[in-house]
């Protein structure tokens, strides 16, 4: 047990906590039993941008040592895992059997426990929903020391769906059985369209929705006027064996996931500024083909370009950065346009900008996705960012949308309570299973959860 300074992936608002790394259920139980008044929260690989896996003055349970993979059921197909397994490790384990994790977020460096707590989504949300929808069952350690087995339609389905998206505030997911998909290869067949403006991008995304399992758009936040949000839409599906060129076929189920290196240290200032971000935006747009059909891309190219560089968040320098991800319901497209115009007109320039259409929401009261347009941007911390994001919050609330807790590091309690109308339902479940709030975090304190 060591006292450690922790922050999220955005490297903002660090706090100190006692970090404990249990290796089995008994150690986990003991850590919860000995929790002080500041409580405990579990942490995986620390990829949430803000404070959900921080617990200042309390205990943080690092679950990455509980990383056993057992019971791969090839017929289900499904796999039984401990919560500390990363999706990267899990994918490497199941891929040789022609199996695939149904929901992969923008990085594989997250744990199964974290993926459940944030109910993460990927480029296939419109078809496959979010991570929680692929859990066959899970064992959750509750505040009273009991381990309960929960299923989506079981006796305590209410608790199951509150744990999904519950940001670790109901208990610790110890093990889970996850449903898998069958694949012939680890490659994708991808269509790329360069779109000159926002309406054309939205139109390509909407038209491609039923044709492609995976779809996402990158857009430029540095341009204004007629080329506001010019971008690149990529849509595709899993490649079948005969989609691959002959030389790739023997390696069809290998994981093409190169690592080019890491950002070795935090520079004294951020490299991401208006100038570099503008240049990146212009380059990214220019390098994309006007239109390309049926290109075979590997997992890294199509899914996880950022995973090739470790610790890439360090390029933002010591002040860190904020990711802003919101969803704006279908029908409120004017709000989406306003949000993008506001970002483009501001002096804050983001490089990693993503737009996607979500499919239906699931039963979790705190899950982020809902039918609508989701937009994510990364902004370096600097003066005026608070006012910009507060304004966007107000606009998003007004349209009936919400922001994503796994990305948030700065919203106010009032805002979040308005964005998540089923919060009370969640709080009631929490009062039932953890009346004294043994599970708490900096996020739960910041947002009065």
């Amino acid at each position, binding site marked *: 047990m060591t006292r450690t300074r922790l922050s999220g992936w955005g490297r903002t608002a660090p706090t100190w906590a006692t970090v404990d790394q249990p290796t089995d259920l008994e150690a986990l139980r003991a850590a919860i039993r000995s929790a002080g008044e500041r409580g405990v929260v579990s942490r995986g690989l620390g990829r949430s941008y803000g404070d959900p896996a921080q617990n200042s003055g309390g205990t943080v349970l690092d679950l990455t040592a509980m990383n056993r993979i057992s019971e791969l059921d090839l017929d289900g197909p499904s796999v039984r895992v401990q919560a500390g397994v990363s999706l990267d490790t899990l994918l490497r384990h199941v891929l040789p059997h022609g199996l695939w994790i149904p929901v992969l977020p923008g990085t594989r460096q997250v744990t199964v426990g974290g993926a459940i707590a944030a109910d993460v989504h990927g480029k296939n949300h419109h078809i496959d929903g979010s991570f929680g929808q692929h859990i066959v069952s899970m064992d959750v350690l509750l505040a009273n020391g009991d381990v309960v087995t929960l299923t989506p339609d079981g006796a305590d389905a209410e608790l199951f769906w509150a744990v999904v998206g519950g940001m670790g505030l109901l208990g610790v997911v110890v093990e889970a059985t996850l449903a898998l998909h069958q694949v012939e290869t680890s490659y994708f067949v991808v269509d790329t369209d360069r779109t000159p403006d926002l309406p054309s991008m939205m139109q390509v995304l909407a038209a491609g929705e039923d044709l492609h399992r995976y779809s996402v758009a990158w857009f430029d936040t540095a341009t204004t006027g007629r080329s506001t949000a010019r971008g690149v839409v990529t849509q595709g599906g899993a490649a079948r064996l005969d989609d691959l060129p002959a030389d790739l076929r023997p390696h069809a189920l290998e994981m093409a996931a190169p690592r080019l290196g890491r950002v070795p240290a935090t520079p004294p200032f951020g490299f991401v500024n208006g100038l570099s971000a503008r240049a990146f935006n212009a380059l990214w747009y220019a390098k994309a083909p006007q239109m390309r059909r049926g290109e075979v891309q590997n997992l890294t190219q199509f899914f996880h370009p950022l995973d090739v560089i470790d610790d890439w968040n360090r390029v933002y320098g010591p002040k860190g950065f904020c990711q802003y991800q919101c969803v704006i319901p279908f029908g409120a497209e004017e709000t989406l346009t306003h949000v993008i115009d506001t970002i483009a007109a501001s002096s804050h320039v983001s490089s990693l900008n993503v737009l996607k259409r979500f499919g239906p929401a699931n039963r979790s009261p705190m899950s982020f996705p809902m039918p609508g347009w989701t937009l994510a941007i990364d902004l370096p911390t600097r003066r005026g960012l608070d006012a910009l994001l507060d304004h966007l919050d107000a606009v998003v609330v007004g349209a009936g949308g919400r922001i994503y807790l796994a990305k948030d590091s700065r919203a106010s309690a009032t805002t979040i309570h308005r964005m998540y109308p089923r919060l009370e339902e969640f709080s009631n479940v929490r009062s039932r299973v953890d009346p004294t709030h043994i599970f708490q975090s900096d996020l739960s*304190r910041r947002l009065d959860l």
Partner: protein
Amino acid sequence: MINALGHPQHLLLLGGTSDIALAIADRYAASSPGLHVTVAARPGERRDQARQRLESAGCSVETVDFDAADTSSHTAVVEASTRDIDIAVVAFGVLGDPEEAWTSVEAATELATVNYLGAVTIGVALADRIRRQGHGVIVALSSVAGERPRRSNFVYGSTKAGFDAFYTGLGEALREHGGRVVVVRPGFVHSRMTEGLEPAPLATTPQAVAEAVVDTVRGRSEQVWVPGALRGVMSGLRHLPRPVFRRLPL
């Protein structure tokens, strides 16, 4: 908690009716909707006015009885709020009559008790709270008067010198517990405390001090002079030979 962009949820003002403390609260209130402020001060009309002013700025306000000289009550004052203390502003102090201060035992005792002893006991109580919280910022309102004592108000200056040394050291001690101390060294501030006095060069206002405090807390620096030019000026003054320094009209 203080969020990623430097906005607190709860502010504790010690010496909560001071112009500088209220100016700091005003500034945070403007950008942090729903801010909770605890005003620790002696009960009375001025505290009631402070509450009204903060409530009309949109804050939820709680008051706690606080007497800087009653050092044995200081732990209870800090423990009175059940919420995490995100930012504590140590803003109490007395200027006193400078001639009386070095000629009367009572006057000297009062100055030393309020400005130094009381600040230390509050600091210890805050430090204990911050260690348990694992986070928290103390804004300690020191003064350039403590940087080099001058004939005209050296007793006040000596209390601020002690204050400054204590909070500077406390900042070091709290680092590994998640705490941060920002030592603020204003020059002459036009406020209730200095009413009727001849302003010194580079005089400033509570609003300017508040702006500097909010900026410093948001950044990573641990000390700030207001106005910023005083840093250089004081650095020069500290090194002047005494025969020269005593001839300066300060």
